[in-house]
């Protein structure tokens, strides 16, 4: 890897991870605010993330295995916020129904007797 490619690849990898975070945050905000602007910004952030991923794949001297990892991670990043959200909603709903049954939120749920 040339000297310049080291810097470029490092920066692209950082940008790649950062855009995945921005996508996640904007996607989550879009769910709360029900505001289409957040939704569009989230899509734009993921679009940029994909663009950076493509640049890494096509332009950097990383090996094929690492490029596959980048593509695979991008797909996981795409699915992660909705999956996390669904899991959060499901756990909160279950916890809410427990609360309705007048269980204290703070009472220790004993998982084992010593």
């Amino acid at each position, binding site marked *: *890897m*040339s*000297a*310049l490619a*080291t*810097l470029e*690849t*490092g*920066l692209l*990898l*950082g940008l*790649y*991870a*950062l855009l*995945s*975070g921005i996508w*996640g*945050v904007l*996607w*989550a*905000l879009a*769910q*709360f605010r029900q505001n289409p602007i957040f939704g569009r910004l989230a899509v734009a952030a993921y679009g940029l993330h994909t663009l950076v991923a493509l640049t890494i794949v096509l332009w950097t*001297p*990383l*090996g094929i*295995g*690492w490029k596959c*990892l980048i593509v695979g*991670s991008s797909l*996981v*990043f795409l699915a*992660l*916020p909705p999956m*996390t*959200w669904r899991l*959060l909603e499901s*756990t*909160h709903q*279950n*916890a809410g129904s*427990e*609360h309705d049954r007048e269980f204290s*939120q*703070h*009472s*220790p*749920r*004993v*998982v*084992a*007797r*010593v």
Partner: protein
Amino acid sequence: MYRSQALAIKYFSAAMILFGVMTLFGLVSAYYYLNPDFLFGILPFNIAKIIHINTLVIWLLMGFMGSIYWFLPGELGRETAGIWAAEALFYVFCTAVAVVAVVFIFVQYGGSNEAALWFINQGRKYVEAPRWAALGIVVIMVVFAYNVIGTAVAARQTTGIITVLMIDLIPLILLYLIAFPAISNMSADLFWWWWLVHLWVEATWEVLIGCIMALALMQLLGTSRRIVETWLYIEVALVLGTGILGLGHHYFWIGTPSYWLTIGGFFSALEPLPLLGMVVHAVYDAGAQHMKTTNRPALYWMMAEAFGNFIGAGVWGFMITLPQVNLYAHGTQWTVSHGHFAFWGAYSCGVISVLYLVLQKTRNLAFVDGSLWKWSFAALNLGLVGMTGALLVSGFVQAFVERAMGGSTLNAFISGQENAWFVDGMVARFLLAIVFTAGYFVLVWDVVTLGRRAPAVAAVSPAQ
């Protein structure tokens, strides 16, 4: 108040003092880069750096212990077992830290003999404490583990969080034992030394702070136990799954087999995934609560923890984690930048968040807010982000000029150090370290005077 909680307050006080010592020696270390003659013949750079890093480890450890001593009695409904031993060892711990610091500052070096190893410096980077003090740390951690496990046994019950904590304390203690053996083969020595450093920071500490944040979330936002425990299990699985074998991303230039580089690069490249999940979770929690809480600084510091962890450990780490880049970036200011951001995001913000929770209870405040915490929050975070940005620029120069172009020769090292971008980065780092230090003093002022300087803060209801 339980005696354990009174002890927690002492631990937080000691942690805040050591946070200040760490900041001061960080500032001094940063200044050496601008003026290498600074304190010439009095305090060498490496000693200032040792104190900076060791106090970082100790103040966070004390913050973690304070947090556990605070939450444990409430969690298990009884006084902490063996609290008398913990109380006595707190003073031993503080005295030992002070003695070691005095030895580092005034004695500095010893000969190549056993006496120096026992009484001056054990010689391993980041765990330099002399052997007597290192043994003391083991005793303190064993008693800490006994406090947690003994309390669960005496209470005849445990919870999911406490079970995870108890399991985590075992490797936490065992891994520290790697600090002791004197291994003459340097490759073997560094191989095992990284187990201590990496697996403390990216495995056992991650689980520990996960347990602490789970307990804090229940107190701060009233989040249900079921939710925090579910997420704690997921986090532990993902962090350990990606973190343990991520160990290989440190194995550069020390003679370890090259397959470690691939293993380390692959698993550490997966580390941003759980961190992104954590960020989405933070947004969900903040949105569900509409950012309303009775303790705003605690909530904001907790949010900073989630975002800081993702950016510092995830983004900054991802830049350098693949072997092709790591080969050149390893050990440069680039990694220093990552280390600063990751420690801040993953641990420091969490400890400060718990500190505000403790203050709310001990000072009997209905609502915690004000302007001082906002100033400290802004100065500390801006200072830290600025410092890491400046270090990043200097690190780029080192990786580019010194490593990739120059081939890591002495001449290349000098060229890198003299490069205008490197020097400017170091100047910017020092200036932003001053901003960070100012933020620390505002934080201390806020913590000391909270609830005392403005009765209105205590009187305002959460609804307002």
